[in-house]
């Protein structure tokens, strides 16, 4: 069993709240990603679960047991650090064995467990080496082996892939997910990389300035961001946002009007911020008779990424919208006037003061 729960957890360093009233409930066997920009409090949250930092306020539970004030070693967790934090003076075998030795596991059992972990991570031939003789990827696997050898209730991982080169990172990402699924151990994974978050997590918790912004599946975080921060943080390029107003069941942007979905639920009248993913923007020529009038815009410039094109368009109110087109799509010339059409279901609406999603209640 490895349920991990944070209830109204706050951590203050002086007057600064690094983690501010965060509540998370992580189910047994779940892979939860803590995502956010640097300084958002995700590492502090992880360190509090590990017991390396104590919360100023709130309750942390592991396995239905309150662990506030309990030493890290008694929390039944294992941690993988960004720097791997291997013991440089010990061989790979002794590194993996370390958590077993401190728990006085009998010698034969120790050997069996180390060999098992080493086999799982493909380290069997490296057991007599010292960390300095290993590549970055191998060190990373030793750190993982040291974490899994003890079969803890939960794995805590603090940006474990960020010191690997890009290619190895993609490969290790997949291996890590497969390993976690096979072991079925609750995993809390801290990263600032949204691709890792989207590809690895069962759920993603997005933090900003110590506050939880959204806790949902990767799909929902992308498809229904809870606020403007999440909308801008997830997705590359991020969601387009532009000033708009809600009037009489339609969305006005300057002189143009966009239709809202039929089942939009109750919405406040007046100013708001509208958002649309770049792949949901369709380009048409100006003046095209279109059931939906679309937004009038001028093409500023476009970029080719090989597999797709990004067309940067400027609206009348000077907001920029990026349209993501297939590489083969016809692209208007820079300076052309175009009509940007957006399907009603692809619109996201946010409060222009708080940035919160307006139709949060609607399904």
């Amino acid at each position, binding site marked *: 069993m490895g349920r991990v729960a944070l209830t109204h957890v706050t951590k203050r360093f002086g007057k600064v709240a690094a983690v501010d009233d965060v509540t998370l409930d992580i189910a047994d066997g779940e892979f939860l990603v803590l995502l956010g920009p640097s300084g958002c409090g995700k590492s502090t949250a992880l360190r509090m679960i590990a017991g*390396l930092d104590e919360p100023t306020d709130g309750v942390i539970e592991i396995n239905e047991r309150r662990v506030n004030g309990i030493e890290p070693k008694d929390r039944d967790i294992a941690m993988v*650090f960004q*720097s791997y*934090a291997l013991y*440089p003076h010990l061989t790979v075998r002794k590194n993996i064995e370390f958590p077993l030795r401190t728990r006085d596991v009998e010698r034969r059992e120790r050997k069996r467990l180390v060999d098992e972990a080493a086999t799982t991570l493909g380290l069997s031939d490296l057991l007599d080496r010292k*960390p300095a003789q290993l590549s970055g990827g191998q060190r990373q696997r030793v750190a993982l082996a*040291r974490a899994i050898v003890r079969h803890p209730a939960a794995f805590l991982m603090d940006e474990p892939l960020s010191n690997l080169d890009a290619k190895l990172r993609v490969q290790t990402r997949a291996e890590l997910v497969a390993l976690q699924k096979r072991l079925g151990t609750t995993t809390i994974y801290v990263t600032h990389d949204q691709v890792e978050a989207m590809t690895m997590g069962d759920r993603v918790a997005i933090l900003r300035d110590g506050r939880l912004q959204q806790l949902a599946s990767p799909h929902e975080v992308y498809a229904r961001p809870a606020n403007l921060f999440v909308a801008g943080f997830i997705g590359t390029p991020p969601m387009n946002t532009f000033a708009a107003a809600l009037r009489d069941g339609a969305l006005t942007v300057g002189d143009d009007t966009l239709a809202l979905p039929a089942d939009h639920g109750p919405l406040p009248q007046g100013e708001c911020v509208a958002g649309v993913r770049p792949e949901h923007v369709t380009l048409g020529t100006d003046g095209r008779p279109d059931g939906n009038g679309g937004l009038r815009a001028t093409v500023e410039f476009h970029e080719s990424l090989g597999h797709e094109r990004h067309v940067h368009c400027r609206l009348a109110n000077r907001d920029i919208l990026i349209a993501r087109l297939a590489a083969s799509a016809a692209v208007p010339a820079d300076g052309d006037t175009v009509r940007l059409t957006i399907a009603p279901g692809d619109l996201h609406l946010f409060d222009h003061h708080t940035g919160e999603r307006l139709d949060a209640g609607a399904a």
Partner: protein
Amino acid sequence: MPAPHSRRLREALLAYALILPSFVVFGIFIFFPFAKNIEIPFYETRGGIGFGQNKTGGTRTWVGFDRWRDVLGSDEFRDTLWVTVKFTVLTVPTGIALGLLLAVLAHQRLRGITIYRTIFSSTVATSAAVASVIFFSLIGPQSGVFKLRIDGIPLLEHPTWALPAVAVVTTWQSLGLAFIVMSSGLQALPDEVLEAAEIDGASARRRFFRVTLPLMSPTLFFAFVVGSIAAFKTFAEIDLLTPGGGTGNNTRVLAYAVYDAGFRTPNGEVRAAVLAVGLFTCVLILTLLQLRLERRVHYVA
């Protein structure tokens, strides 16, 4: 292409010109006396006018390695070297252990810890002479506040206990530096490795002996070698606390023997020159040892 060549030549000339002043100073005050020091024992000088070996006129006779053999093979040299080794063994490990202990104590996030750090490192500001004067006023045979005696003999005149007493003074005086070196060594340790050990279930004691201490080995080794070199060159405390090299020469270390032969013994200059080379050789060996072994104790994280 002549241009780059002549430019390189100009740069080289400029470099030599810039080096010249310090080369002259080193040459006059270090290299020349050093070479002279090695030359002196090979000759015997008779007659002439002047003092000691610096006589003008007279005759110089090549005597080969006789002087070297006489001095370095003597019981006196052996005893002196033995006292020096004992003194090193008494001061260096103790100093490192105490410095490390204080560094570990001061390596806590506690209110007002900087005050303790300042106190712990304060003896850096004292010289061996100052330390000796302080301790002499405390335990000096006649004028000391405490006038410690063992078997009725004043501590600093005791044939057995005078050397450990001087070692205490030296250890105290060098403790500030040891503390600073150990503290910086501790601060350079990767926090994450110690945190990993904490999560891996290691007790504070185990973390210290199994992780901190091995990771500190480069610092410990450095402190050990530098401390040994300093111990081999100890002079001021010996001269000030136990003038004459102690009862029965029991605090007569190598550096003191050089001084004693050169400045307090008539016609002892040759012996002083040989002993000085002996001391130099010991320090050289320690230095080479450090250079050779240093890489082995370094861990690449």
